[in-house]
């Protein structure tokens, strides 16, 4: 294909050439978008396979009688505290501080959860006693079946503050 040599040609470009060039550019843009889409899909967090997770998530805490009213029991594998209120109802509190995610210890002498990271404090029902926490401790659904307390730790439930409807009763 004999092509233009060193002389510059400023002749107007034919319409078909402009059309084809525009077509290539358009297709190139589509290809680039596809590439970005593939890369983005690739690095997305993977789809969780439902069954095994659900089995692992259910923690059998124990028979109702094991937990005295007014007690707070820590469950390390489930990452929650099982609180039995004075009136006998159960709450499962996620141990993660609602400020930035630190693990909150239960201070029995003070009867409160006190986060070491930035000073947030929560009462026995998870309500905020001290900022900077923006909301009460998350809950895990509690089921009481045949006198046995079971906690579903697959998905924590957010709430602004305590509500009597959140308490699980026998």
């Amino acid at each position, binding site marked *: *294909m*004999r*092509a*233009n*040599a*060193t*002389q*510059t*040609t*400023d002749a107007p*470009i034919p319409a078909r050439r402009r059309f084809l*060039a525009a077509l290539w*550019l358009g297709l190139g843009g589509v290809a680039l978008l596809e590439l970005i889409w*593939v*890369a983005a*899909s*690739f*690095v*997305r967090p*993977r*789809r969780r*396979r439902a069954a095994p997770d659900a089995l692992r998530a259910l923690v059998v805490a124990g028979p109702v009688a094991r937990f005295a009213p007014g007690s707070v029991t820590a469950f390390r594998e489930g990452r929650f505290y099982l609180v039995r209120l004075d009136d006998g109802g159960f709450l499962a509190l996620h141990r993660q501080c609602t400020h930035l995610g630190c693990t909150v210890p239960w201070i029995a002498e003070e009867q409160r959860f006190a986060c070491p990271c930035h000073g947030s404090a929560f009462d026995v029902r998870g309500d905020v006693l001290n900022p900077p926490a923006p909301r009460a401790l998350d809950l895990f659904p509690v089921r009481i079946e045949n006198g046995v307390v079971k906690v579903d730790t697959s998905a924590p439930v957010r709430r602004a503050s305590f509500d009597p409807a959140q308490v699980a009763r026998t």
Partner: protein
Amino acid sequence: MPESRHLGESDSLAARVWRSIFRGPVLPRSDRERKWIVFNTLLLHLRPVRVPASTLRYTHTFGLGGMSLTLALLLMGTGALLMFAYEPSPAGAHASIAGLEADVSFGRLVRSVHHWSANLIVVVIALHMLRVFLTGAFRGLRQFNWIVGLALLACVLTSNFTGYLLPWDQRSYWAVTIVTGMLEYVPALGGWLQRAVRGGAEIGTPTLIVFYALHTTLVPVALVGLMALHFWRVRKAGGVVRPDPPSGSAAAHTEHVLFLPHLLVREVAVALALVACVLVAAMLFPAALGEPANPGMSPNPAKAPWYFMGFQELLLHFDPVFAVLVMPLAGLAGLLMLPYLRCGAAPQGRWFLSARGRRTALAAALLGLVATPVWIALDERAAHAGPWLSGVPKVLSTGVLPFAILLGALAGFAAILKRRHGAATAEAIQAVFVLLAVAFAILTLTGVWFRGEGMALTWPWGL
């Protein structure tokens, strides 16, 4: 500067942002604008503004260098993505790749593209090396660039080999075992060398960490640096080797064309076609993942990666010190010396140097094509017959002696070409190179396709 206007403060924000990024035209509409773009764009200014029209022909270089770059970029892109999923520990590696293929969107595709690009790049750079040699593009100004090219070859082979271990399946584990096992045959240094490469006495976590670091960081950095040097030296030598004008028209006017669009369009076309082929191959033939590595059970046979099978085949015929050290080093020394051999006036740019060069190269190729399988078969038969020269130590009977015979045969072949057929020195060297290249290719093919259980010669359909 075409179309440049002062950045007026009264222009719209969009116009001022655009002008600050694109200082000139983006879509050129005249040759003057094209030249400006090539000169003033970061990626394009690495290329020349004009190229000789005679170098545009596809069959001049077959675009192999550009293909190598395309494959290298594909490898780095897919490799970067794979790093998000891969776990570099013996306990987690295999499962992370299985998980990648099962759970990650496009995981299998990205991995297969990586696999195919890796295998293809070895073939492409071997062909590129052959093309550069046959067009004499390693003489004169291009001598050192041949050496840089050899360094690039070493980097690619290192990258392929280190990547081979990462899936940690039976095939990879034992392939790396035997190839690093070959290192022990190096006299005196062998043990130290093997422990250095393996990161210990056995293949384990340190090995994987060393290989992973090499594969994902050290070799890619070296590759980018060496590629930059390689392309720079090509540019400084005046671009791709020019097909020599026939003598007599020494003052012939070499016609030049603009890089943009003529060469760029051709390069992009080849690159896109190559990427399309790799994608199709990746979709039709996904990369395999074998059983997780089991150090307690070696497979039968245990083979090196295909690009090292030539050496493993040599091991079956020669004494280990010769197959692993002497002969590869001799080959390497030959390759390093090649640009510096004195062979008179050898024209650059013409394939096979001349009509006689073409004939002698063809003869050498045919000779290699016939002699190598015959010799392999005879040697196999002889091995079954029992050790020969039984009184003599093996390093002499299967090492020094056959190697000396081989060198003598090559020298004799070159001498015959020069004296009986009047070949020039450069043509004789070319013939020897072609002969050895064909022989090594046959050794590789034999090792990959014709060796079955117990490394016995079998027909490929039996495998």
